[in-house]
């Protein structure tokens, strides 16, 4: 197989079951995940807390062994250091030797890649610049804030100019500027022809930069595909904002399948596009004043909440 067509990351029937205590209690964290990340794409791994994102990424990095299934990384096995040489990994809430300075820790990691001293120095200085830590170069990490540590984490993942970058919640702990900077870094990695696989439960991150998305809920991938397609497949809706909605009107709207939400003095009504006319008529007759009518596309957030709720419902 040629390099270009080899997927950057493949999960096949991936499973992980944790044994707790004496092995009597088990947590089935990942339940048969199949996934292919293509070279050159930004792939978002999306799911609620406890869905199994971190667990699958740790398996991809060889930190924990799968209970079943297989993993191919850059066409090889993660146990092979030659493969790891081409990968950058940011763990969730990264922890570092906090008695070292930002420069020292990156220098340490650079040595693990056997980068020559000169190249290491140059690379570290440009990375510290990139993640906005040039001013804190010689400060020990113990004195770093949470967001600064996250930036060190991004820098160490990129130290050896990897082909594949696996980032577990890269935007967590960052301020709005930091989030934008890291988003830009991720996009620029794609421009350099690199592959990015990152997890998040923050939908904004995904919507703006991902080529493809997999949604994982309770250890299973429930949806996968290009984001636009995923959202387009959902029917269009409409959002109406009205004041003074009477109880009777409320009931009529609900019978149309509308979702109602009181926001201050106003009521926000969301319903399927085909019921728009009926709903507006009901509001007029009920003496409500309509302030907005907007066609409304299903957002990733709604999709996400719906999937999570469905999985939860099916389970319980």
């Amino acid at each position, binding site marked *: 197989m040629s390099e270009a067509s080899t997927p950057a990351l493949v999960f096949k029937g991936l499973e992980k079951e944790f044994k707790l205590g004496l092995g009597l209690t088990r947590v089935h964290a990942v339940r048969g995940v199949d996934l292919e990340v293509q070279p050159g794409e930004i792939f978002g791994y999306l799911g609620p807390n406890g869905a199994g994102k971190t667990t699958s990424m*740790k398996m991809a990095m060889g930190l924990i062994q799968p209970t079943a299934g297989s993993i191919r990384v850059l066409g090889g096995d993660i146990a092979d250091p030659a493969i790891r*040489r081409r990968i950058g990994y940011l763990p969730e809430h990264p922890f570092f030797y906090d008695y070292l300075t930002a420069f020292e820790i990156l220098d340490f990691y650079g040595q693990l890649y056997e980068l020559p001293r000169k190249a290491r120095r140059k690379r570290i200085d440009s990375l510290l610049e990139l993640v906005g830590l040039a001013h804190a170069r010689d400060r020990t990490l113990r004195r770093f804030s949470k967001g600064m540590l996250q930036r060190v984490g991004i820098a160490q993942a990129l130290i050896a100019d990897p082909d594949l970058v696996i980032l577990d919640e890269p935007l967590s702990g960052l301020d709005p500027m930091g989030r934008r900077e890291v988003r830009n870094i991720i996009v620029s990695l794609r421009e350099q022809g690199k592959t990015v696989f990152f997890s998040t439960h923050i939908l904004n991150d995904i919507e703006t930069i991902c080529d493809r998305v997999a949604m994982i809920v309770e250890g299973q991938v429930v949806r996968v595909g290009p984001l636009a397609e995923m959202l387009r497949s959902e029917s269009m809706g409409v959002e109406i904002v009205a004041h003074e909605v009477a109880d009777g009107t409320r009931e009529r709207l609900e019978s149309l399948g509308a979702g109602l939400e009181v926001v201050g003095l106003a009521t926000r009504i969301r319903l399927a596009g085909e019921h728009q006319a009926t709903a507006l008529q009901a509001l007029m007759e009920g003496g409500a004043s309509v302030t907005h009518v907007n066609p409304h596309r299903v957002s990733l957030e709604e999709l996400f909440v719906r999937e999570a709720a469905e999985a939860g419902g099916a389970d319980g």
Partner: protein
Amino acid sequence: MADIVSTVRIGAVARNTFREALRNRAFMGLVAFSIAFILLSLALSEMAVVGQEARVVQSFGFFAISLAGAITAVVMGALLVYKEIERKTIYTIVSKPIHRHEFIIGKLFGLIGILIVQVAILGIVWAMVTSIQGGDVGAEHLKGIALIVLEVSLVACVAVMFSAFSSPVLTGLFSLGVFATGRLIPLIEEMLSANRGLFVENAFARFVGEAAVTVLPDLSVFNVSQQVLLGVPVHLSYMGEAIVYALAYGLVFLVIAIWAFERRDFI
């Protein structure tokens, strides 16, 4: 070969482990405490045996250095890898192109570096006190101190091995047990060959005693204080044998530790 054992990667881990200890207040406290311990024990032993102090003090000083070094080896060895997993610092390391065995070897080398520094500091303190008391300090004593470095390095290997299987507290207890038993091996051997006593009366005790003698390193090999005391020179060939002995045992412990570590989940 360079791919399986890289001096750059091992060196990076070892240097960093060493640097961590030097920047760690707990380690510095331990060194200060062991200096105080040596001074105190030297003072006490001098009071206890008026007249022949220099020799006894010498012998006791060697034991105190070895004990302080062994305690450091056990405490730091038990926590060496445990702490990395517990604090999750290991995630960003084993995901880099370093072999897990290189990581263990690097950590162990770093710890041995620390032990060398500690034993050297205590050796200097001991030499200063001895010369103040009118004893002389020579090459034989230096060899004695060097043997202590071997001994405590071996104890560090034992601790790292146990830490691959058990909690730090158990590791500490087991390793100190090995240190104590290892020092008493000649005594146990003597008791085993006697035709009376515990090992004759109790079959289980005999089994345990024989197992200990067979499996555990004889740490008395590294204790030449009696020889030095009596003015018997420590031959270089003896030093060589002691080094080979320590290396052989150390390697076995290290291989077991690596074997366990290679298979481990980092959760």
